[in-house]
């Protein structure tokens, strides 16, 4: 008897189920309805993408310093490149731009160090970023010490102001938010009701009314002789508004900690602040990070509202540039530029928060 143990070689899968054709068959043309959808989708892409690319790249003009440079009939990016300095620094004196640049540089290095996973001494870097950096940034941007010339805040503007508003807003709102959330979950009725009232009031009104309040009512609240910087007033409004939102994010994190953890902390005889600081908050913070990043994204977009009370953030300064008689009619270019800058920041942050969520997922979810 002859045994033939040799198996026949595996046949390759049918040609039309692999490769580009197979993929297209499964994902684009699996049924008549699907095919119709694909055709509609292609048509939508064709009517939107082709003219957009042609306008933005192929027929666009990039360099020059007046509108005469725009001759190709497409986008006139000259408007952006000619005014880029103003869009970034606002009305900050040109010979002092280096001060802003240093702040930008330190800020980006810190962010990079905190985002990259393998950086050593992360705790120290974070402390430096939260405690030392704001002081350095303040003296560099505002001046007034170490022989630096003072630059009044009404000269600040553009992307720089947007970043100042967003970073100060979030860094200041976080501790207030944690306190408010702890207060809301407190067993002391007076503390609890104050916190609930604060949170619900600020969450129930639009940011614009808060900014209006900060700009017209705050000066009435304080003694006449104290003058209160416009930027500072806006920041007060933003921080109050944002800490209410932050409080709800933190509350979510606190509620997600199992009751046993609270009880265990108590059983160990830890005081309230110790059990919060050593056991509850570190765990809650981990769960809160995506929520905090989302709040930060919302805040970053919301900073554009300060143009309503007359501060010149990135959007406001581009908007103002559009009404310059020398550049009338380039509003699309201006808005596309602002949208692109905001989009890069927000999309980057949302991707980072998704990556964090994946990294921090300890597998307890089903």
């Amino acid at each position, binding site marked *: 008897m002859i045994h033939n143990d040799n198996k026949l070689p595996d046949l390759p899968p049918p040609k039309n189920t692999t490769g580009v054709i197979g993929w297209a068959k499964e994902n684009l043309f699996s049924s008549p309805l699907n095919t119709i959808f694909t055709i*509609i989708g292609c048509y939508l892409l064709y009517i939107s993408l082709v003219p957009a690319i042609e306008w933005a790249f192929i027929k666009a003009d990039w360099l020059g310093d007046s509108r005469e440079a725009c001759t190709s009939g497409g986008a006139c990016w000259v408007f952006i490149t000619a005014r880029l300095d103003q869009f970034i620094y606002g009305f900050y004196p040109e010979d002092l731009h280096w001060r802003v640049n240093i702040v930008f540089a330190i800020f980006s290095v810190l962010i990079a160090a905190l985002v990259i996973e393998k950086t050593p001494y992360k705790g120290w870097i974070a402390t430096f970023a939260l405690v030392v950096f704001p002081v350095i940034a303040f003296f560099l941007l505002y001046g007034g010490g170490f022989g630096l010339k003072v630059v009044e805040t009404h000269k600040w503007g553009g992307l720089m102001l947007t970043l100042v508003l967003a970073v100060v807003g979030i860094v200041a709102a976080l501790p207030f938010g944690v306190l408010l959330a702890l207060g809301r979950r407190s067993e002391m009725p007076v503390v609890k009701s104050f916190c609930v009232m604060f949170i619900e009031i600020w969450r129930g009104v639009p940011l614009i009314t808060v900014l209006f309040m900060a700009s*017209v009512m705050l000066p009435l609240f304080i003694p006449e002789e104290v003058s209160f910087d416009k930027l500072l007033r806006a920041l007060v409004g933003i921080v109050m508004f944002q800490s209410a939102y932050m409080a709800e994010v933190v509350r979510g994190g606190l509620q997600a900690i199992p009751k046993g953890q609270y009880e265990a902390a108590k059983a160990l005889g830890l005081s309230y602040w110790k059990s919060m600081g050593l056991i509850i908050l570190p765990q809650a913070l981990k769960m809160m990070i995506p929520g905090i990043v989302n709040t930060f994204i919302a805040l970053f977009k919301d900073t554009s*509202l300060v143009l309503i009370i007359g501060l010149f953030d990135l959007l406001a300064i581009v908007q103002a540039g559009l009404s310059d008689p020398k550049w009338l009619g380039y*509003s699309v270019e201006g*808005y596309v530029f602002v949208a692109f800058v905001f989009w890069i920041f927000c999309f980057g942050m949302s991707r980072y928060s998704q990556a964090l969520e994946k990294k921090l997922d300890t597998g307890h979810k089903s």
Partner: protein
Amino acid sequence: MPDNKHNLATGNVSFWNDPAKRSLLFQAILFIAVFAVGYIIYQNTQHNLESRGITTGFEFLDAEAGFGIIQSLIPYDETHSYGRTFVVGLLNTILVSALGVFFATILGFLIGIARLSHNWLISRIAAVYIEIFRNIPLLLQIFFWYFAVLRLLPGPRQSLEFSGIAFLNVRGIYLPSPILSEGFGWVLAALVIAVIAIVFIKRWAKKRQNTTGEQFPVFWASLAILIGLPFIVFLISGASLQWEIPELKGFNFRGGLTIIPELSALLIALTIYTAAFIAEIVRSGIESINKGQTEAAHALGINPGKTLQLVIIPQAMRVIIPPLTSQYLNLIKNSSLATAIGYPDLVSVFAGTTLNQTGQAIEVISMTMAVYLTLSLLVSLFMNWYNKRMALVER
């Protein structure tokens, strides 16, 4: 035992170590601090108002406003009072919010379902839509539609025309408006009767299905009644509806219904922006439903349409409703950005123009905030009620 201050059994605990007493003290301090700050603010405000010569109180609401508003749902002109401007602004806010909620929900559900489509291209397009529009500030989007897109429309004389009854130009959209004559009341009455009849049919059909197992095509019957009954009455009452068609007179259109560009820009931006968020909510809601549910339904022989309607959507709605509520609230609050392009909403006409003319910041701002708080409260009450009805009832 002479020195036994810390004996718990006798209840003789030092003041600082007794949690109950400590919390009382702490609350008392907080209470006093808040009121002290409140008092200082009150004092400062009084002083500042006096030195600036600003009157207080709500008498200004009866004074003549003296400014016009480009769109009002109720009769309004310069001779009306500031109180009237408040109502005009409030109604305009409610109008744009209601329309925005309606359109954003429809678009959001469409995009959210498209995002889950088996068609790769369609789901990619939906994903790109979501990522683009939710990462760009709403204010910028409003500016874009108002200053960049709607300004490109032709002037009144070169209006885009839709079969001679509707016109689109840089000044707005002009639509024919219905003129209601007497007989039209009957049509409305018929509509109400139709709705009542549908409720009864639905109940009867459910009862019949419970007792006999037979199904009744409730949806088609309801649709027929809802459209048919008012239409028959409309014909009987002598076709009492007429349309006023806008006409070009001089430099602009007269008559008909006008949708001002400020409203269109705000509405487009609010819809597109909020829909991106709603789409993500819908997607996560549907994705949260276990695939086994679909498979079980199919195994029972329920067809895909019914599976979606009876198995997936009711369960997904439980996940969707709470975040959807927040989006509705956000939309209502975001409608206040109207002030940046001059749509006459509450913030624009009341917290803007009225505040500038009267200088009564405290009254005006608190009234505005109170309105938004009330609106938020009403919407969340309604949505919570709806949520409770939809929520999973567990034994």
